């Protein structure tokens, strides 16, 4: 028969254990919601890239022909109103060209593997800035979390592993200065995590209500009917480009023949 002497936990230790269990549960929820939000953003960014490559570029071409037409009209007409319209049309064309050639167009199709999702979830659970205990810790976590978001959007599992490794080998990841200090830290973490969870829900609502999300929803509905909405939109804008181009060519030719 063996006798084990079990030390009775002090009320502070009991409270700390309870709060730690609570925090562990919330950390899991936080990681899940961060993963959901990251997926949503990555899928929309990828869709936005496709939209700009297929349709945005044609709007830019349409604006270019419209600017040329407005400039022809300004030369022929000479009025202040026509010149102002031409300046506006040219600015619109420059803006559309910049948007259709920007960084966003480089977003390719986003498909997250189960391994990538699991890694991201782990990083979010361990590294999340809202688990920070002081300003220095927060800065480090924010830097790593920002990198993790980028790595997730790029489907870079190796980078996610490296971020996790970097955090775990950092001395900041293991701290302890007595029960009282630990309890204060855990309580603060609980508050921060709860606040971030509420913030994530707001962000999800905002992202789901964005124009690009509405457009993506329409494209998905069209796909269920066997239609390719982006291709349809591209065909419509292309026909408008053709009309504007023909109109410009005919105006330009008429201007050349008119003395």
């Amino acid at each position, binding site marked *: 028969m063996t006798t084990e002497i079990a030390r009775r936990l002090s009320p502070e230790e009991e409270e700390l254990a309870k709060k730690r269990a609570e925090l562990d549960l919330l950390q899991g929820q936080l990681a899940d919601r961060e993963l959901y939000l*990251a997926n949503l*953003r990555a899928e*929309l*960014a990828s869709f*936005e890239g496709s*939209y*700009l490559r297929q*349709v*945005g570029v044609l*709007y*830019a071409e349409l604006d270019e022909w419209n600017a040329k037409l407005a400039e022809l009209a300004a030369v022929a007409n000479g009025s202040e109103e026509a010149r102002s319209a031409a300046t506006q049309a040219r600015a619109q064309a420059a*803006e*559309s060209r*910049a*948007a*259709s050639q*920007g*960084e*966003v167009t480089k*977003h390719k199709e986003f498909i997250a593997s189960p391994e990538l999702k699991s890694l991201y979830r782990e990083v979010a659970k361990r590294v999340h*800035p809202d688990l920070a205990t002081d300003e220095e810790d*927060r*800065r480090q976590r*924010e830097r790593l*979390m*920002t990198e993790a*978001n*980028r790595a997730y959007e790029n489907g870079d599992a190796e980078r996610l592993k490296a971020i996790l490794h970097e955090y775990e080998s950092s001395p900041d990841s293991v701290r302890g200065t007595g029960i009282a200090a630990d309890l204060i830290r855990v309580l603060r973490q609980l508050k921060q995590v709860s606040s971030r969870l509420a913030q994530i829900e707001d*962000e999800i609502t905002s*992202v789901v209500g*964005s*124009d*690009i999300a*509405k*457009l993506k929803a*329409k494209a998905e509905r069209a796909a269920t*009917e*066997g*239609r390719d*909405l982006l*291709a*349809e*939109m591209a*065909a*419509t*804008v*292309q*026909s*408008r480009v*053709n*009309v504007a181009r*023909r109109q410009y060519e005919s105006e330009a030719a008429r201007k050349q023949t008119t003395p």
Partner: protein
Amino acid sequence: MSTDSNNAVVRALPSQLSPTHSGALVRRGLRDIEATEQSENKSTDQLARKSVSGIQRKRISEITEEEKYEELLTSYITRLPSFRAFLEKEQDGPATAYAVSTLDWELFPGGSQKEAVAIAKAEALRAAGLEAYHDQTPFDMFLYRGGSQEDLRAKLERAREILRTRTFETSERKTGVKRTVTEVGFTFGIGRSLTEADAADLRNQGGRNEGRAAHFLMLYR
């Protein structure tokens, strides 16, 4: 800017980051697609009211003499004057110039969307100011009378431009796969008489549909 908001910026969607750049292009696409949806709903509604099988069409026994006369002289698809109206007008005296045009149905296998395209073409013809008639014989042609061949040509080219901007939905009969068709065109021929205009249109089509010549010869001999 706080570090929190910095993090949010890195994570924001590109279109949310820049309201004047990609966001503006996204909004424009969404606006256009919503406008198209609204217009399609409206056209479908109008088409339903005008449809051949539409329940609002009255029985012959229920319509007035005036309405019967109008039905006889109007195409039941496009509501343009019919071939019979064309013949009536001819009896008043010949025009200086004639034109014949036919739609390019190759884009619409199995004649899908035929009514919608014919209605769109009729709208384009009206907008271009043409005196147009819809001949709903098996050759499904549009006939025109005009003051001069030049005037007819200019107006038909204008109508062709208008029709090219329209978009139609069609689906493959076997697979059911839907496609969007744009740039729908039509050929036309112009001449001093209807037979001359028809021959010109046939030449523009590369000699297809030769049976049409016999159709006119039969009517005019």
